[in-house]
Structures are given as structure tokens and as C-alpha cells.
């Protein structure tokens, strides 16, 4: 299978897996899976990739969002502490005068 052919069938496989393929495209993929071992291998690989991505992306995104929220919270706390410190020093200066 040459590179352009592999790209073409790779795209059709992905469409078939996600249900975006037209009837004709779907039939073509299924027929080629049955008759071409290379296509069957690409199909299994695409399924495996999709399964992994679907199981991991959600967790990775949640974890990243949590991390970003924690970082933002830390920055807010640091800013608050700096502001309180500034006010305290200002207050001390006022008392000294």
C-alpha cells in the first residue's frame, strides 16, 4: 500500500469508526478490511488509538484544569498575603508617626 493510498484509507477508517462515513465509504472500509490484511491492521490500530485517547484525554484534561485552578488559587493567595503585608506595614508606619 503506497503512502497516499494509506492516507486515503486511514481517513476513511477514522470516519467509519466515528460514524461520520457515508454508507458508501463505510461499505468500502468494511470490504477492504475483509479483503486486505493491511487495511484490517490499520483499522485495528485506529480503534486501539481511539480507545486509548478516549480513556485518557478526559482524565488528562480534568487533571490539567485542576492544576490550573490550584495555580490560580496559589497566585491569588500570594497576592492577598502581599496586600495584607503592605497594609500591615502601612499601619505600623502610621502608628509610629
Amino acid at each position, binding site marked *: 500500500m503506497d503512502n497516499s493510498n494509506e492516507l486515503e484509507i486511514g481517513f476513511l477508517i477514522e470516519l467509519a469508526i466515528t460514524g461520520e462515513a457515508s454508507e458508501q465509504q463505510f461499505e468500502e472500509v468494511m470490504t477492504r478490511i475483509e479483503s486486505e490484511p493491511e487495511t484490517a491492521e490499520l483499522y485495528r490500530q485506529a480503534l486501539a488509538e481511539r480507545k486509548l485517547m478516549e480513556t*485518557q484525554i478526559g482524565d488528562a484534561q480534568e487533571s490539567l484544569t485542576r*492544576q490550573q485552578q490550584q495555580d490560580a488559587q496559589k497566585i491569588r493567595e500570594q497576592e492577598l498575603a502581599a496586600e495584607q503585608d503592605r497594609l500591615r506595614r502601612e499601619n505600623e508606619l502610621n502608628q509610629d508617626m
Partner: protein
Amino acid sequence: MESLSELSTQEWISDLEAPLSRYALSLGLSSHDAQDVVQEGLIALTGAMDKNRGSIRNPKAYAFTIVRNNANKHFRDRARRNEVEILEDHPEPREDLDKFDEPLLKETFRQAYAGLSESDRDLIRKYYLEGWTYEQLGEELGCTAQNAWKTVKKIVSQILAGEVKKALSKADPDFAKELFKG
């Protein structure tokens, strides 16, 4: 197969049954479970169509998505129950989703994902989590659906390279062999 628009709802729903069943089997379900998942999908599709026909832009894609989601749910439930299932007449390799719960794999995957640019993460999120189609991604990116697919593939390869590949090979060598073939 005729175009869906030329057939009555009942006709094209029954026309979808065979390709949906083959699809469910290709996902690794037993024939009994594949039948259940397809029936559930068709019932959901009929229900949704009866409720509001205009709400489903692409009924065929909707049916395939339901079947895929139901199959994933089946695998997750099975993994939770730790059931052992005897394969019937399709000796395709099966992967248990619980193997992907490996902490090292999760962590390396998370790092690889966090290391992507914001725009790449946005694209991947839209595709895998929000259910955008390649056509929609293409519209967003100003390119064809096929080029959107190439872009997604490139980002996925970037995620799966290096540490994730190592972690996956450790967590599930058979699955890694399947995934990184070629």
C-alpha cells in the same frame, strides 16, 4: 444501499442494522452484546427522531456514536465487575480498559497532554471530548476534513511518542504492540 433521504425512517433504520452490527463486532463485543448494543442504539435513535426529527443533523453518525458509546460503557462496566468473557466467533484481540488505569501511564499521558500548545489541546479536546466531527474541525481550521484529520493524527502522534509509549509498553505490552505497529 440507497441514500437515507430516499427511504422511510423504518426502512433506513433497518438498513443501518447490518453495518452497525458489524461495527459493534469490530469494536470487540461478543455477538450477543453487539446485538444488544445495536438494538439500544436503534431504539435511542428512533426515540430521538420521533421526539424531534430536526434535532439530529446526521442520524447515521448519531447511531454509530450511540453504538460506540454503549460499547465503551459495556467495556467499562465489565472491567469494573472484573468479568471474564468468552469470545465467540471473532478472535480479535480484546483490551480491558482497566489496564489503562495504570498510574504511571495516566501521569505520563497527563504530562504529554499538558505539554501541547493551547491550540492543539483545544483541537484534541473538541474532537475526543466534545464530539466534533472532522468536517466541523475543518471549518474551524479553514481546511478540508481530511487535513483536519491529518492535524489531529499529528497531535496524537506527538502525545503518544516518548514517555507515553514507554509507560504503555510497560502497562500493557500487547496493547502497545497493537497501537504502535508499523
